[in-house]
């Protein structure tokens, strides 16, 4: 039996009161709920405040470049499909610098989970607008307000027919842990976008602001209905549906390319006979 203690307890470099703390708690809890030991899990992150998370628990970790957690995670999963691979990073990392990989990950549907700490701001670089910052959001870099429309990751994921799309709230750890556990269990690419307050740089989307707006989807909701999911995703921000908003049963990438899970590529050595046959073809 895996317990929370297996995942350890570490000092962090986050600001007191930050939404990252409950997310860390939820992640650990989800791993325990999934009965995964630290050895079975690989966290891949980028650079940012969120991206530091994997340093604060016990697991295999690859903390790579800003914006590039998804490609590293994809390569890792293809090399060892037996690992539970979790990419975890910020909104800037995944929807800004890494936007192109986000689109590709949705298209590929590799069996892994993407957890986005969506604080709607670039935290680590001190508060510039991020792709999810509201229009008009004022920062030092956008003193006249962010002139661009915010990116809606949920809506884009649903319209692109992502395997599993959930939105959670850092202020509801129980609910969030459950979402993450379900995302891990899903066979295919899973997105968990987390509404995360940043107490240092986002004075608009605070814990209270979210608390007033977050609405759990209820049991009657059918997450396999793409149009209904889009309706939720495209709602005005006066109500923010949280929960599993969409899912489907697209076969994962590994299946489509015929990767055998029991037989990760990294174990192989060059098969001399096969090589000889290949060479023969060039005679």
């Amino acid at each position, binding site marked *: 039996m895996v317990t929370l203690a297996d995942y350890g307890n570490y000092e962090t470099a986050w600001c007191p009161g930050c939404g990252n703390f409950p997310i860390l708690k939820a992640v650990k809890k989800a791993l325990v709920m999934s009965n995964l030991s630290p050895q079975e899990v690989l966290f891949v992150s980028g650079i940012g405040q969120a991206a530091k998370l994997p340093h604060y628990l016990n697991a295999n970790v690859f903390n790579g470049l800003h914006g590039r957690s998804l490609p590293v995670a994809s*390569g890792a999963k293809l090399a060892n499909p037996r690992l539970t691979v979790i990419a975890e990073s910020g909104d800037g990392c995944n929807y800004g610098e890494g936007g192109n990989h986000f689109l590709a990950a949705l298209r590929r549907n590799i069996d892994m989970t993407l957890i986005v700490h969506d604080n709607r701001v670039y935290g680590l670089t001190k508060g510039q607008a991020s792709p999810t910052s509201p229009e008009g959001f004022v920062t030092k870099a956008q003193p006249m307000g962010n002139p661009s429309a915010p990116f809606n990751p949920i809506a884009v994921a649903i319209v692109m027919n992502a395997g599993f799309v959930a939105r959670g709230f850092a202020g509801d750890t129980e609910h969030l842990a459950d979402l993450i556990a379900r995302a891990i269990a899903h066979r295919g690419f899973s997105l968990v976008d987390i509404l995360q307050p940043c107490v240092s740089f986002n004075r608009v989307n605070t814990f209270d602001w979210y608390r007033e707006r977050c609405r759990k989807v209820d049991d009657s909701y059918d997450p396999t209905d793409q149009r209904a999911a889009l309706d939720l995703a495209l709602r005005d921000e006066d109500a923010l549906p949280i929960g599993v908003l969409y899912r489907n049963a697209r076969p994962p990438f590994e299946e489509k390319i015929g990767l055998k899970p029991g037989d990760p590529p990294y174990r192989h050595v060059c098969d001399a006979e096969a090589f*000889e046959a290949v060479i023969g073809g060039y005679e």
Partner: protein
Amino acid sequence: MKAITLCVCGEAGQGLVTIGQLLSKSLVRQGYHIVVTQSYQSRIRGGHNAFYIRVSPERIVAPPDEIDVLITLDAEGITLHRDEMAPSGWILCDVRYAREGKRILSVPYAEFGEGEFLNMAAYAVTGCLLGLENGFMESMIRDTFGKKMDAAAVEKNLAVVGKAVKWVAERAQDIGFESLPKVSVSGRRIMVNGNEAIALGAMAAGVRCGFFYPMTPATSIMLTLIKHAKKMEVVVEQAEDEIAAVNMAIGASFCGARSMVATSGGGFALMTEGISLAAMTETPLVVAVAQRPGPATGLPTRTEQGDLEFILHGGHGEFPRAIFAPGSIEECFELTARAFEVAEASQGPVFVLTDQFLADSYRAVSPFEVRKRMEESTRPENGNGIYKRYALTPDGISERRFPGESEALVVADSDEHTEEGHITEELTLRVRMVQKRMKKLARILEMSVPPTFFGDDEPETLFICWGSSWGAVQEAVEALRHEGHRAAMIHFSQVWPLRSDDFMDKLETAKRVIGVEGNATSQFARLIRRETGFEISDHITRYDGLPLTPRYILGAVARMEQEF
């Protein structure tokens, strides 16, 4: 007999490469030696492309200089290649656009078959003139197309060949074309180009994952891997961009799969941050770069050696790397396999640097053999405590483990890190980690390939060259020696790191050293000076998009001589 060069040319889309390969393979199976170069434009149909086959009964290594037999499938071919024709060269063309003249053979291709069979007819006519037998050509066609076409189509092709052969045979006497001398076939040989040899080298070394974004002239490295992916159990994925490709390869390699990427200069530019990541996380990574002329998009289908300094310094921060620059098809294979070994031994990025000429150049070589896996790293495990991915060791190399394989948790970090792999801002540790990474250069040096020498022992003229120019320089040296000059060459098939002991005595004793490079600024000569202080003051450079050839080099030498 001296080597002769056949040039098959015409519009893109006319199937030049198909008959070029078929003709090459036929010659190889008959025991001849070949060197192929391909010249093509950045378009799919139209324009004008050419497939050159230099052929000889003896071993040859240099790309062709002039055309002895031009087999043109379009009217423009005659005009476009006029300057390249040898004085006694032959032109084979369609009777419909034939010019009058000696050594022009006007072939009534339309009589042999419809338009789509033009290339097959040209193959047959050429083969017949060169002395290939009808039955042999038939078997070549069955062999090559038997699996790709239905039986009826194959028969149609054979009928065309039959007619063409008959046409030639009937007037062979009148034509007076001198066929190739017969040679005896000895030993197994394979016909591969540089890119195929790189892919085969990777497979022989146990490559498990390949990631790429298409880019000429590197794409066919990955297409070759893909072709054999199932049999060799390789996972190859086309990435959304080059940034993804390099990061995917790093992820796969981190998990223990030998991994590679392949690209050209512009794609490599997008990978440089990833190169730095491989170095920082100490993840083995093999990067094949097939150069083409820049800057920017430049001439996407031509050749150049213009990216040496960029490959040497690509990636921010300081870290060791190795750069192989194969001179031949054999070295494409050998050094790619070695690249994987060096990458694994030094736990970082290693490069295989070629160019469009070598990438697309076929030769016949001895069959490649599977590579014995190097002994497993014998690093001591760091006790039974926590696994330290970046344990500080005397030689800077730490034990590598893979996530999920053992109880050990493997933690890698792009930030400066502790021995355990966790982010740190401890500045004294930073210093030790920099030193740890730099120390690995010694391991790379241990495994490095020294330059090769060829020619006069006490040369008056010593050429210094690297990478794909090997064959051209070697034949230039042979020609000079033939004329009584004391000429020699040093060729570097590993351009970084350099060990001056390996070559300084040669440089210092030669009367005159001439750098030969396929670029405008003599980048390797600069590197030699940086590393040794030795100034190479004479340079032969080429940057018109074509490969260096013996005649180009000899011409430049002659001009230099006049200047004295």
